């Protein structure tokens, strides 16, 4: 399933609405102005994403994983490479530079992932006027391959992955990561249909 240009634009706009909420929450939390940007959104079949992600993230990654269920269901993951995770923690907390991701740093990354995933999936729920429920986020630090192989591919349905390149901008630094939302074809089609309606409403 390929996204058309206008579908991509609509999806990016929807995600930006969610990110605006997340950025506001993070700014409020840290007292620093934080903005979240979406340089790129893409849809891939589940089989393709391993190769796609391995080309942009190498080594160990910090992943924050939340399973969501309801009228649309799937798995949402924030992926940050190790350096990005350490930098993000430092920028958010003002703690002295520690070379390792200690317990407190892991929690910060979990909370940031949680805010981002909730905001993004919440925006989808609002669009679809349905309630989406989430599990408590889980953080793992491991290689990209292991993260991807631990994602359960559910049932017989063909699955797709939305890959949202995400950039945190704060205190004149940039931290880049990827938000990956894995959806069944039915959920994706529902999402696209509602997105089209929303767009038409907006244009009217």
């Amino acid at each position, binding site marked *: 399933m390929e996204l058309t240009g206008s579908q991509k634009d609509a999806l990016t706009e929807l995600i930006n609405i969610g990110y605006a909420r997340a950025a506001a929450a993070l700014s409020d939390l840290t007292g620093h102005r934080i903005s979240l940007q979406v340089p790129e959104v893409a849809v891939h079949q589940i089989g393709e994403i391993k190769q796609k992600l391995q080309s942009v993230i190498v080594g160990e990654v910090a992943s924050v994983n939340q399973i969501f269920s309801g009228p649309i269901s799937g798995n949402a993951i924030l992926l940050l490479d190790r350096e990005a995770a350490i930098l993000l923690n430092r920028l958010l*907390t003002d*703690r*002295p530079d520690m070379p390792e991701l200690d*317990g407190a*740093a892991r929690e910060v990354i979990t909370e940031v992932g949680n805010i981002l995933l909730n905001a993004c999936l*919440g925006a989808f729920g609002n669009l679809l006027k349905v*309630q989406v429920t989430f599990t*408590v986020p889980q953080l793992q630090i491991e290689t990209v391959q292991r993260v991807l192989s631990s994602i359960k591919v559910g049932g017989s349905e063909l699955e797709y992955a939305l890959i949202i390149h995400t950039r945190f901008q704060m205190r004149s630094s940039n931290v880049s990561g990827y938000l990956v939302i894995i959806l069944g074809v039915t959920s994706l089609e529902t999402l696209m249909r509602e997105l089209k309606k929303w767009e038409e409403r907006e244009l009217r």
Partner: protein
Amino acid sequence: MSEPSDNQRSQRREALLSWIQQFAPYGVITLDESFQVQSWNHWMQLHSGLTFEDVTGKSLFALFPDLQERRLTSPFARALQGESSVLSTALHRYLLPLRSPFRETGLVHMLQTARIAPLFSDGKVCGIVLVIEDVTQREKQAETLARQHRHDELLSWALAHLLKTEQPRKAVRQLFFKIAEQLDFDTFLIYLRHPKTGILSLDAAGGIPVELEKDFADCPFLRVLSQESEGVTIINSVQNRPEPELRALKQAGITAVVVIALVANERNLGLLCFATWTREFITEDESELVNNIAQFLATAIDREVTNNQLHDAKEQLSDHAHLLEERVKERTARLQETVSELETFSYTIAHDLKAPVRGMSGFCDVLLEDFSEVLPPEATAIVKRIARASKRMESLAHDLLEFSKVSRQEIVLAPVEIEPVIEELAALRPPAVRDAITIHTPLLRVRAQRDLLQQVFSNLVDNAVKFIRPGAAPRITVSTELVPQTSPNTRSRALIFSSTEFESGEVATSPEETNQNSVRIWIADQGIGIAPEVHQKIFGVFERGVSSEAYEGTGIGLAIVARAIQRMGGTCGVVSEVGKGSRFWLELQAA
């Protein structure tokens, strides 16, 4: 195994809930949709001091109003929308204001990580579950670790700087501002002990108002340190202490001070003090780190002192050596000048004497030839004596001029065959002398200046011919032998008029040549011999081995030999006994 029945499932669920209620090591709270407390486990009772009865049916936001003040209600509201949230310690410190489990941390509240999630019934949100984890201990450990890390970095930074610098006392000011800041001190003072008087004086200070610095110049609080000045002394609550010695500290607003002795190589070099204006107490933990820094500083200062002493000693030694060298140069120059003046003087005398002496001699001849008939016999005898004295004077002047010439002329060494030299000089002498010379061929070649070597042989041959028993016929043998190169110390010195005591620079020899073997030339006679006690003397000017009037001579011949051999880089000597003949030897480089 059969499937558990609904009843069994329900019983197990009950048991799990009961366990969570009683024993879970977390705070677990459930709320209904209006945020009223539905359950409150034992952990919560323990840490909040509120029983289930105290909280049941009450809104969590009413029980803990600061949740609203700190804008922490939104995760609860969103939980009702189905969202789960994690609240981290680093970003929130705590969710509920519970008492800190460790009082000594200075924390009022327990540090917490909280999870807020919706509870579902029949697919719909029916309430909220709140799980609270106590992470105070974890954070305390992480903080200790981080502080340790910072201190280690500070120590290695300070150590590196103090090791690197040649002048640690200069570097101290710059270093200690940073160290004091990093260790949360406002002031530092460094006192150094005078190496001779032992009196302490302020060497460097930071964080003291300039107008108060003079009050600290001689460590006013030294006596308060009492006997402990060898180690670490902490004075806390300075402002409340009665001792008058602390007046300067009080006036500067200092509230606590730590003083450490600077000790290196068992020498007490001074004191290092860190002080604070804001804290009442300095802990033992801090003093350990400060003690390490003091040790670094003491070692660096000790090194500087030792280096300076070494440097001074070296300079003194070098000055002294320079002075000695100058004196030797000066004296050598004076000596050379004197020698040169004397040589010029003797040359002038010898030269100027020649003409008048020849005149005297000539007029004596005229008197004897033209007026012999008119001169009375006594007068003739006197004139003959004058003539003999004039002849003697003439030959003295001649020999002195020869000696001067040998001393002054430029020397160029080249390989010389000895045999032709001897044959040439023999040819100029009467047949009796010619026949007296026996050469033990082959003679080895030497490096010498030919005319000078001929002069040496002439003088030795003439001596051999002259100093014989009356009536005896002269017999002279010349031979050579190879002398392997030996160090001058191993040579017998008694008989040597050695050139090694003179400047070798006089002779144009290259270093390779000096390593070559030497040739010793023997000139032996069967004359009257020389007493051993005068062997050395005879090579001096005007020195004669015999005083007898029977043997004529100026006493310069052997002096010329010695000077000529010396100027050609060689040595000479004699082996002789009275009545047993003499064996003169000359040692020159082999060619």
